[in-house]
């Protein structure tokens, strides 16, 4: 009756049945947890990327010799998107461990715990992203309405990717406690080899480096969000393909890990 594999089609349905529980948890995470008793409240989650961007704008805008009106929207859109992904991965590590008291009481589809974390950071991301759009509008004076339309599939891909990444990091962390530290270093490196602060074109002699940027899946994901707004065009076919392939790979890995390890995960947390 009970095999090790329990991801069937009804898995999503079981998640849907717990939707009120998930939303109540997310609401609690947003309202009570992170900013309890703080003056700015949710405003703090906006302050950090804003202040970071302001400083980076001044320093790197000068370094790369780019006008503020052009650089600020680029940086802001990239930073908020990147922060959403890293937050999902870093906090995804403890998704199952913080959910342990629920997992040990009742059988639940475990994917809801990474989902809870991703939904909470998606909330902060959407606010920050809205501000990034507003800043773009102020500096540029115009955003193509069609670009906003192109954002819908882009954000959907981003969300599914974040959920998959959080599942993977959560399962890994439950089995290997070293994971969180390793991922943090990895993300630190990834931040600098992904065009967030700079454009690939900023490098004087490209060649090899350009090729690397072309194949960096994070770069493609960022392009998916950034290109329509900033350039008014769709991302390149390769970028769309790479993003989807990356999502498919991480998503498959997440489903595979859950299929293999979901039932026994309770022993490790």
């Amino acid at each position, binding site marked *: *009756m*009970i095999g*090790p594999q329990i991801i069937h089609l009804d898995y999503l349905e079981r998640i849907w*049945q*717990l939707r*009120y*529980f998930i939303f*109540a*948890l997310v609401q*609690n995470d947003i309202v*009570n*947890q992170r900013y*309890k008793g703080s003056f700015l409240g949710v405003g703090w989650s906006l302050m950090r990327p804003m202040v970071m961007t302001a400083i980076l704008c001044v320093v790197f805008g000068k370094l790369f010799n780019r006008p503020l009106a052009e650089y600020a929207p680029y940086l802001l859109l990239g930073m908020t998107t990147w922060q959403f992904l890293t937050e999902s991965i870093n906090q995804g590590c403890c998704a199952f461990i913080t959910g342990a*008291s*629920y*997992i*040990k*009481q*009742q*059988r*639940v589809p475990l994917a809801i715990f990474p989902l809870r974390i991703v939904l909470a950071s998606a909330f902060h991301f959407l606010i920050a992203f809205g501000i990034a759009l507003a800043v773009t509008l102020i500096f540029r004076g115009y955003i193509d309405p069609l670009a906003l339309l192109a954002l819908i599939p882009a954000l959907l891909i981003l969300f599914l990717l974040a959920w998959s990444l959080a599942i993977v990091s959560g399962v890994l962390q439950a*089995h*290997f*406690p*070293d*994971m969180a530290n*390793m991922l943090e270093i990895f993300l630190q490196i990834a931040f600098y080899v992904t065009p967030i602060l700079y454009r690939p074109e900023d490098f004087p002699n490209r060649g090899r480096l350009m090729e690397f940027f072309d194949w960096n899946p994070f770069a493609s994901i960022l392009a998916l969000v950034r290109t329509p707004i900033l350039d008014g065009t769709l991302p390149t076919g390769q970028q769309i393909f790479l993003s989807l392939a990356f999502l498919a790979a991480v998503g498959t890995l997440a489903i595979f890990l859950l299929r293999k390890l979901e*039932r*026994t995960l*309770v*022993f*490790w947390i």
Partner: protein
Amino acid sequence: MAQIQFQNVDLEYPIRENQSLTLKEIIFHGLFRKVKRGIRTVKALNDLTFTITNGERVGIIGLNGAGKSTLLRTIGGIFPIQRGTRHVDGSICSLFDIGVGFELNATGWQNVRLRGYFQGETPTSLKGKLQEIAEFTELGDFLDLPLRCYSTGMLTRLAFAVATARNPEILLIDEVFGTGDVVFQKKAEQRMREFMHRAHIVVMVGHHLEFLQEFCTRVIWLHHGSIRAIGPARETIRAYLGEANQLPNAA
């Protein structure tokens, strides 16, 4: 019709000897097979076969470490089994650790809702129960405060009121709760009895043998993860007591 059917069920679980398996151990294990992995497997349940049908009240007894709680969690579908078949028909409600699984920064009300949703309620189905739960806790305005301001007794009341506000077909209980002050205890006992009478099947682990003898129709006696005896409550408990008294450290 609620039913629980176990056929030759084995359950093993891994235990990490040090707190957790480090990456170092994985790598060393992969490179040089000789290095011992920090994992041991413990056989917690061994070849269990039994059927519990509608209307039964079953107690699980045994010494510490006999696998009582593990069996309860296996019935509840929380632990995966290695061999055999487990078949459970009916909605399950499990009362294992009453005080855990609360969000301490959320208010009493928020926790009542959160708990309800976790157990499958919807906002509509919960609406009718909120008032009743609140009245039973006697917490009044404290329900608007975050749980971290609660005393242990208050927390227990809240947890107990929420947990027992359901109508499950199968009820799994680990130990009988020790709840709050004396007045509350009487009230809690009454509510607990009503709660247990509503369920079609009750399976409970307990050391309170007198209560088990009075309440249960059948008793499963576990010993080192195997069924030592299963039968009518009175006889099984008597046999268990007879043997336990012969142990040198028996109380």
